[in-house]
């Protein structure tokens, strides 16, 4: 009965996409926090080069995070 009443293909797509996005967005933000805190600490210690690398990590990660949020809002508005 379940095989006929449930759209298993759609359900599997929901499972893998939400897993990918949920874990991805959390990790992206974690990298953003890591980059921002390390960049601040390293700059304070005068290690400007390393601070710049961590700064780039923070910016890229937060852009990925913000992009995912925007996509989420587009998904909501296009339902």
């Amino acid at each position: 009965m379940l095989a006929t009443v449930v759209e298993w293909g759609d359900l599997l797509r929901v499972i893998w996409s939400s897993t990918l996005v949920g874990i991805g967005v959390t990790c992206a933000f974690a990298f953003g926090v890591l980059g921002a805190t390390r960049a601040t600490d390293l700059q304070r210690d005068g290690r400007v080069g390393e601070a710049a690398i961590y700064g780039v990590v923070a910016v890229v990660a937060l852009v990925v995070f913000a992009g995912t949020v925007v996509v989420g809002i587009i998904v909501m508005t296009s339902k």
Partner: protein
Amino acid sequence: MSGDVIVVIVVATALAFDFTNGFHDTANVVATSISTRAMAPRIAVGFAAVLNFAGAFISLEVAATVASGIVDEQAVTPLVVFGGLIGAIAWNLATWYFGLPSSSSHALIGGVVGATLVAQGPDAVIFGEGVVGKVLVPALVAPPLAFLVAGAGILLTYRIAGGSRPGPTARGFRLGQLVSGGLLALAHGTNDAQKTMGVMTLALVANGTLAAGSNPPDWVVVTAATAIALGTYVGGWRIIKTMGSRIHKMDAAQGFAAQGAGAAVILAASHGGFPLSTTHVISGGVIGSGAAKRLSAVRWGVAGNIIVAWLVTLPAAAVIGAFTYGVTRVFGTGATGPVVVSVLILGGAAVLFARRAARGPAVTAAAGG
């Protein structure tokens, strides 16, 4: 004339349900933000109220999703809708009284199914593709999915950012919670206010006030958005307490992981056409973010009570919806039955609020730091 009176009562009842939906489900959005001190309690519920209001306007497609596909729309009368709404309101109030997060959507679906069963018999309920395919299977899949996503997310987060200085790291994740909580609030407003708009539209169509297939009128959209936002602002502090601190004591990263997982699952499911309960999803995320850190960190007794409430919601609301429909029909098909039931439910709600108010606030301003 009698039909118009019934529709006015049904619309008022739908707005009352929308209000309870707002204050009952506020916990989904703000509990983790309050618990981790990302926001002060009043600011958190105000923020959620504004975004719930805005979310109600985002998508204005015909919103009769609660009844369509679950029961035969031809079988729906204003009295059936009334019975369903009372079933949902009564269950929301009962679970709020005990501080249990349960699904307002499932309560509404259960109430409408129960009232339809009594009014028209089992042939009017679409059990296979409707109740099982659209409600039960997604409800079984979503909480474990959010549990696993939040659990994996927090483990990776600790691995990535665990070595950083705790103060700035916690502040960073609290900032992230503003975004993830905002996204949840927006999704909640879109999903749940639409359901109320759909029920109100259904009653107006059943009464002949609107033509079949009509979009919700502007006044329906505005009143539904306002009711859910007001309910959110009043805040279901008891459920906020359960979600925010009684399941486990969260840190900011766990709160962010739970909200991020919840938002991802809800949005992916919405995109795939599966209506999910925000309550189920975010509860799964909260439990998962605690269990991944340490299994013993989760108060499994509290989590068990929540799961029991999930399982009981559909049948309990169905029984109350069926009973309400039966009581209204004792007074015939006129407005007397709905008036009597409305007075009784208002009296019951007043007693519950008075008893809870006498015990003092569930969450104090100090909780938000």
